[in-house]
């Protein structure tokens, strides 16, 4: 019988990955080794907010001044980024 099979059959396993101990203290300590990972925002998406020419810069400035919510701004810029991408490819 293989080892894995044996463990499977014994069924003895308890995971214990607790976020906080009973007093609610954080158990992980900052300053340990930093592990990078496949995060979307910094690696897959950066460049989603981008300005490419003066005319749109001014317009974007106007929009941003009057509407701090980034949704509208990103809606505008997203289109621009895609255009930049296509231009570069040719």
């Amino acid at each position, binding site marked *: 019988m293989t080892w894995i099979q044996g463990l499977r059959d014994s069924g003895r396993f308890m995971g214990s990955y607790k976020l906080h101990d009973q007093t609610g203290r954080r158990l992980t300590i900052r300053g340990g080794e930093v592990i990078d990972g496949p995060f979307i925002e910094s690696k897959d998406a950066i460049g989603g907010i981008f300005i490419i020419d*003066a005319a749109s810069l001014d317009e974007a400035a106007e929009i941003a001044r009057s509407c701090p919510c980034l949704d509208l701004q990103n809606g505008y810029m997203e289109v621009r980024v895609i255009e930049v991408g296509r231009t570069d490819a040719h």
Partner: protein
Amino acid sequence: MRTDDVIVALDQRFRSCHGRVVAALTRRFGVQRFALIENAVQDAYVRALERWPHEGTPAEPERWLVRVAHNAMIGALRREAPMRPLDASHDVSVDPPTLDSDDELRLMFLCSDPALPRAAQIALMLNVAFGLTAGQIATAFVTDERTVAQRLVRAKKRLRDEGVQFDVPEANALPARLATMLDVLYIVFSEGFNPTDDDAALDTGLCNEALRLVRLLTETKATAVPAAFALRALLCFHASRVPGRVADDGSLLLMPEQDRARWDSALLSEAFTCLNDAGSGTELTRFHIEAAIAACHALGTTYAMTDWARIADLYDMLRQCAPSLVVDVNRALAKAMDSGARVGLDELDAIPEREVLGRYPYALAAYADLHASLGNLDEARAYLDRALANQSSPAQHALLKRKRAALDETHATVFASDRPGARLS
């Protein structure tokens, strides 16, 4: 098939069986012989590269590798102590060790020995079981190659000195070791998803290896814990985007540019199922939270039309669970999407590890993007230049250069229209 393609294909094949080959030889020759085993396996790869393109790939390539490495080991051991009487393990006429599927997991559990500091356990597993170089591991740890190389040397020596046997961990030791293994699979996948050295934007071999092993863990009763399901969900979410992530010319496509219809629906389905299974326990790990963030992205119709408020909340939770500057950088970007670039910049400025941040290309690129979106083009250019000066993968480098060039375009246009750049902050 072109020679380059042959070598790349062989390279992928070697990497995917590396752990099994090393494990078989470790079982035969002992942990004491790690260094010799690694040399012998590298020798076998060299031989394979010399012969397989001409003679064809053997019917059982892994057994071929094990046999050749086994013979190389015998030779090396004899050279080490020519006068020592041979024991069974030095006898060339003895069959080479067979490949055992459990060995791979055994080897990984071995590397997560509590005698080693945690960073060393992870580095060792990446190096020994997955064949990652010190340079690749250094990228995962946001540190330098020399630190990792020393860590590996010390770890192997420690295992030798402790007289560790290639054996199974006790059941009560399993949970802690499993935690390390999950971290390793996470790092392997991450390295495949954003390769350090490769010119290619993606190393699908590594991603597939990580996926294969996390699936194995969830399908094995003893290791089928919620955290393993959460990691499997996370890896499936990211893997689902692979078809949309790379352009025809091999360059990286950004999220806003990706055609979401190309994302792999089977993997997405697997991801959501596993995320559900991961919620079966009472424990919450960072894999749960990262999978939930990835799920939000998967559900968004476009990058802009994504539930940024929820993602920002999830990053707040992730900060509690697994605080690090990497998490904070991504959290800042999520906050920017939710509340504006100024908020994002403030969050980046609040990150305490200024020195590390200054040489982390993704943080610098984040600063550049947020400044660019506010119209602070000089600052944006400066940050991109710093990011370019720092080490990043060839694909990331090409991406940064493309963005830097686009900023030059903007600069020229601003000057040509003879208007001061609009400053918003």
